């Protein structure tokens, strides 16, 4: 996702003078092409993220379209007040881009984990939240950002994730993408767990569980029509996110159920990380297994809930 982000930003900046990429001193060499193509539209703001968000606000107030980029915790919770006041209160078209969503940087420890960011950002007035599920969705989200007139948060994974889509989809604020269709249950996959959801659906198919997979690209606002459709026609709807169970996309869907469709509660299940710091060392794939977010664990939880047995 990271390379797609840099490449798409290069295209966007080369074609238009309004976007400006602000970086919090990360991405060594990642933006070399952008810097060559549009040298005035890249600014390393240093390890000074509070200032960077204010700079984004001032640029956006003056007609530019800033994208402020660094690792998720440092561009979200560290500067939550700057995002709230400078971007959201002023309601300016500035995009906050976090790299390392969820446990992308599992090995770096909890300072670099991103398991609370959706919760914090989605409650801010005027803010929209997009979680692209693969590199092609990243490109679509950046195009959507250029057309959006308010503050936006885009949560990236890292680099090298599997690409799920065959071609670049069209999706924007309030949108979702159905990437696999099945009649028994639906997995609403958030961001970088989309590939795990696809593999879980394959495992479930072996047990004759026919699974829809939706990439829940827009966590705020939610795609209400899509939720209505899936709750109306499936036995089970599952949210799957590499984010705390407290306040994330699953919580947002619980709010939607409470407000719009209370009878859907019995059909809903959340799969998320616990409300705890994850303190073991090791890779993201290992962390996912420990926390039950890998495809086998996900498929097993869904099969259990549907009263099926998954092959060992």
């Amino acid at each position, binding site marked *: 996702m990271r390379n797609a982000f840099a490449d798409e930003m290069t295209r966007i900046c080369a074609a238009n003078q309004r976007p400006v990429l602000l970086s919090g001193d990360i991405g060594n060499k990642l933006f070399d092409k952008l810097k060559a193509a549009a040298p005035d539209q890249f*600014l390393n703001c240093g390890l000074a993220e509070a200032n960077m968000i204010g700079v984004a606000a*001032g*640029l956006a107030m003056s007609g530019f379209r800033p994208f402020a980029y660094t690792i998720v915790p440092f561009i979200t919770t560290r500067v939550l007040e700057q995002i709230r006041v400078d971007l959201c209160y002023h309601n300016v078209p500035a995009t906050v881009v976090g790299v390392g969503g969820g446990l992308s940087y599992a090995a770096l420890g909890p300072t670099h984990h991103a398991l609370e960011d959706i919760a914090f950002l989605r409650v801010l007035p005027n803010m929209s939240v997009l979680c692209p599920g693969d590199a092609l969705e990243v490109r679509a989200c950046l195009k959507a950002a250029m057309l959006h007139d308010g503050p936006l948060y885009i949560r990236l994974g890292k680099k090298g994730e599997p690409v799920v889509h065959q071609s670049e989809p069209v999706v924007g604020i309030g949108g979702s993408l159905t990437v696999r269709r099945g009649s028994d249950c639906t997995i609403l996959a958030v961001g970088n767990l989309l590939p795990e959801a696809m593999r879980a659906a394959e495992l479930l198919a072996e047990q004759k569980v026919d699974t829809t997979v939706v990439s829940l690209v827009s966590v705020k606002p939610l795609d209400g029509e899509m939720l209505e459709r899936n709750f109306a026609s499936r036995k089970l709807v599952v949210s799957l996110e590499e984010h705390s169970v407290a306040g994330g996309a699953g919580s947002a869907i619980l709010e939607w159920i409470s407000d719009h469709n209370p009878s859907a509660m019995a059909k809903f299940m959340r799969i998320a990380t616990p409300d705890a710091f994850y303190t073991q060392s090791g890779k993201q794939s290992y962390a996912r297994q420990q926390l039950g977010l890998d495809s086998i664990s996900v498929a097993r939880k869904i099969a259990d809930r549907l009263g099926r047995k998954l092959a060992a």
Partner: protein
Amino acid sequence: MNMTQIEQIARELRGTVIELTHQAKPAHLASALSCIDILAVLYWSVLNIDPAKPLAEDRDRFILSKGHAALALYSVLAKRGFCSNEILQTFNNNGGKLAEHPGPQCIPGVEAATGSLGHGLPIGNGLALASRLSGRNNRVFVLLSDGECNEGSVWEAAMFAGKQKLSNLCAIVDFNKWQATGRSQEILALDPLPDKWQAFGWETVRLDGHDVRKLDATLADMPRGSGKPLAIIADTIKGKGVSFMEDDNNWHYRVPTAEEVVAAKRELGLV
């Protein structure tokens, strides 16, 4: 407009701020009084602005980063013709537009919502940078309090402006030596304040923040050719203009009685 006229405007603005504080009972009267002369010079002599075109692209920008002095800004904008006196009189009323800290474009002329300290200078950096990227020559002025210089984001912003050589940016510190609960030098070690700004890459000028002639001479020739952002450390007196309020930090929160309003206006030559 000559400086004698601006001094008279500043006296009248002080009278308005004192009356409205009595009427609407907000805190921060003394904080508003300490920056009145700076605002008067900016709005009647320095800023390239037009109340008829409050969103003109090439206008100079002013951000009141010490948003708790909102009443000073509202009084200035009303007197300068950005909004009516009727709107000004609704300050702090139920259902009105003018809260104790300014909201985004709550009235024409308010460039940024402030109130939480340490936000104005980073936003000012963005505005100054946008001016440079657009090839416009507009200038950006940000007024901070000395207490506000406790905030880390001020120094992040100072480093950025120094590095980017934002010579169209001016930070003015209303250095009245007080913050909410005590002397600013005692709460955190601010001194030597001008040296700190200089060390961050700014051209630094220290002056009397109530001397409208010195303020005008320094602010009017921005950018000054140094190629650096300009920091003005303006020595001011909290509660300036009213003998029984000056340098008395109780007036950070106190509201004047009707009798005190009359006494203050008498001192200001307004009755």
